[in-house]
C-alpha cells in the first residue's frame, strides 16, 4: 500500500519536473515556438539562432537549476535525519559561511583569481567550515551529539560570517561579496555542468544506501544502535555527502537557502518517515522547486531578474504552509 503511494507521488513529481523544465526552456526574452524548442532538444542545429539561444542560454540554466535544487534538498534531508533537528539544512554544517569566508579572503588577497579557481576555492572553504564544526563538536567529552553539532554549527557560522563581513568592510569588498553571495543561476553554462553533473549525480547515488540507517537514527541514536546501526559512521557519511552536495552547489550559484529546509518536510508529509523514500523524493521535488523559482525570477520583471532566493521563498513558503496546515502530523 505504502509502496503504491510512493510510486504515484514519485512519478507525478517526475512528471512535474519534466513539465516545469520544458516550460522554463520555452520561456525567454526571445519568442520561440514550442515546436522549435522541441526540435532543438531532439535535433540541435548549431547554425540556427533560435536553436543557439535554447541550447546555449536556456538549457544549461534549467539543467543547472534542477541539479542544484536536488543537491540542496537531499543535503537538507540527510542533515534533518541524522541530527533529528527539523530546522537543519546544509547551513548548519557551515557550508555557506565557510565558502563566503574563503571567497572574502581570496577577493582581498588574490583579487585576480580566475573564476574557475574561485569555485574550487569556495568549495574548499565549504568543506573546511564543516571540518571545523565537526572537530569542535566532537572534541567535547561525550562525542558529537545532534545538539552539539547544531550548536557548534551556529557558533562557527556566526564567527565566519562576522569575519567575512570584517574583511569585506576593511577591504571595501562588501558589494563584490554580496554579489557573489546572492549568486543566481544566470552564470551556469555547459562548462559548469560538465563537472557539476557527475559530482552531484554520483553523490546522489550513494544516498539511498543511507536511507534505512537514517530512518532508524531519526528515532534516536539508542534505538538505532540497538538495531545494529553504526550511528557514528552513518553520521559521518551523511555529513560528507551533504557537504559535497551543498558545497558544489554553493560554489556554483552562491547561497540559496530554504530549499534544503522546506523540501524534506514536504516530502515527509507526502510519503511518511521512511528516509529511503524521503531522499529520492526530496531530490526530485527540490529540482522542481528550483526550476520553477528560477523561471519565476526571470518572469517577474523581464529582462531583469529577481534574486533566486527571494523567488524560492515566494514559491516554497505558501506550499509549505498549505502542507503544514493540512496535516499537522509528526516528522
Amino acid at each position: 500500500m505504502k509502496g503504491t503511494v510512493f510510486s504515484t507521488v514519485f512519478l507525478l513529481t517526475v512528471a512535474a519536473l519534466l513539465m516545469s523544465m520544458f516550460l522554463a526552456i520555452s520561456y525567454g526574452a526571445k519568442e520561440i515556438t514550442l515546436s522549435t524548442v522541441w526540435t532543438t532538444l531532439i535535433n540541435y542545429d548549431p547554425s540556427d539562432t533560435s536553436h543557439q539561444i535554447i541550447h546555449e542560454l536556456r538549457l544549461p540554466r534549467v539543467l543547472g537549476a534542477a541539479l542544484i535544487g536536488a543537491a540542496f534538498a537531499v543535503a537538507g534531508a540527510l542533515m534533518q535525519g541524522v541530527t533529528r533537528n527539523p530546522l537543519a539544512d546544509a547551513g548548519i554544517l557551515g557550508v555557506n559561511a565557510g565558502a563566503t569566508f574563503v571567497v572574502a579572503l581570496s577577493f582581498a588577497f588574490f583579487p585576480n583569481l580566475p573564476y574557475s579557481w574561485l569555485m574550487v576555492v569556495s568549495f574548499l572553504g565549504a568543506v573546511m567550515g564543516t571540518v571545523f564544526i565537526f572537530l569542535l563538536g566532537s572534541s567535547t567529552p561525550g562525542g558529537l551529539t545532534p545538539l552539539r553539532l547544531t550548536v557548534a554549527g551556529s557558533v562557527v557560522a556566526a564567527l565566519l560570517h562576522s569575519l567575512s563581513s570584517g574583511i569585506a568592510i576593511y577591504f571595501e569588498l562588501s558589494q563584490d561579496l554580496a554579489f557573489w553571495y546572492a549568486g543566481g543561476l544566470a552564470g551556469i553554462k555547459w562548462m559548469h555542468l560538465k563537472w557539476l553533473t557527475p559530482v552531484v549525480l554520483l553523490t546522489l547515488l550513494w544516498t539511498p544506501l543511507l536511507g534505512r540507517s537514517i530512518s532508524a537514527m531519526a528515532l534516536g541514536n539508542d534505538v538505532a544502535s540497538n538495531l545494529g546501526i553504526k550511528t557514528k559512521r552513518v553520521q559521518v557519511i551523511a555529513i560528507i555527502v551533504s557537504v559535497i552536495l551543498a558545497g558544489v552547489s554553493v560554489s556554483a550559484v552562491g547561497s540559496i537557502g530554504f530549499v534544503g529546509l522546506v523540501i524534506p518536510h514536504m516530502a515527509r508529509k507526502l510519503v511518511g518517515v521512511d528516509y529511503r523514500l524521503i531522499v529520492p523524493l526530496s531530490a526530485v521535488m527540490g529540482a522542481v522547486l528550483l526550476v520553477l523559482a528560477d523561471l519565476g525570477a526571470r518572469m517577474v520583471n523581464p529582462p531583469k531578474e529577481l534574486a533566486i532566493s527571494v523567488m524560492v521563498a515566494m514559491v516554497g513558503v505558501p506550499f509549505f504552509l498549505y502542507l503544514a496546515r493540512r496535516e499537522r502530523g509528526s516528522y
Partner: protein
Amino acid sequence: MKKLMITAMSILSLLTVAACGQSAPQQSAPAQNAPAASAPATTKTPKSGADQKIASMSIHLTNNLLALGITPVGSVIGGDVKAFLPHVADRLKDTKPLGVVTDPDMEAVLALKPDVIYLDEAYSGKDVAKFEKIAPTHVFNLDEGTWRDTLKKTGALVKREAEAETFIADYEEQTKRVKGLIHDKLGDGAKVMAIRVTAKELRVFGMKRPMGPILFEDLGLQPANGVEKIDKAYAVISQEVLPDFDADAIFVVVNAGDEAKKVYDQLQANPLWQGLTAVKKNQIYIIGAQPWLDYSAIGNKMAMDEAEAFFKK
C-alpha cells in the same frame, strides 16, 4: 497608572513625529524655486571670472571647467571609482575631493569657503538651499541642449567665452575627420550599437546622453535596429535578443570588476555572440567607461581621440 503613562508618551511621540513631518515640506519649499533665485546671487560674489574659487558638485561640470583651463578648488568624485575619474585625475591633483554626488561631503564644502558652487539639477536640485547657505550657487541642467550649451554657459560665468567657442570648433573639426575615418572602415549605411556589460545585466545604450549624442548625432552613425526606439540613456536587454539588433559594429563597455569581466568572457565564448554580424566582421570595439560615459566637453573630446585612434589603423 502605568498604562496611562504609556498612552501619554505615545501620544507625545506621535505629536513629535507629526511636527517633524510638517516642518520638512517647509524646508524644501524654497528649494523648488531655488534655480530662479540663484541667478541674482552672482552679484554677491566678491571675485568674478576665472580667479573664482569654484566648488563643483558634478563630475561633468568639473570636466567642463577643465576644458576651459580652470581647475575647481573642490569637486565631487566618481561614484563608481570612488575617486576622481581616471581620465582627468592628473589635472585634479590640487583639487579637494568633496564626496560622491549622491552623498556630498558638506563639511568639506564648508571648509573650502568657495566663492561659488556649481550644481547639477538632476542630483542636487533638492538641496540648493543648503548649498546657498555656503556660497552663491549656479544650477545647471545638463539635459538642456548638449554639452556645448553647458560649456558655453560655464564659459560666460567664468568669462572664458572665447575658449569655449574654440574648444567646440576644434571638436567639430575633429568629428568631421573621425566621421570620414569611420566611413572608410565600416562602409555605407553601417548600423552601430553600444552595449555595456555589467555583472548583473546587459544594457544597450539609447539615443540620450551619454552615448546617443556622440554616436548618432556628432558622428552621424546609423542606430542598429531598435536602438532608435530607446529614448533614454540605456535599456536592459536579454542576451537572447542581441542578434535582433543586427548591428554591423558594436562598441562595448565592460564594467570594472571581476564579475563583469567574467560575464563578458562567457558572452564571447557563446556561439550566439560569435554568430553576430559585428563579430563576424571583426567590428567589436572595446571602449572605456571613462571617457566615453563622461558627458562633458573633455569626456567627449577624449572619446573622439580614442575613436580616431581606433579607426586610423
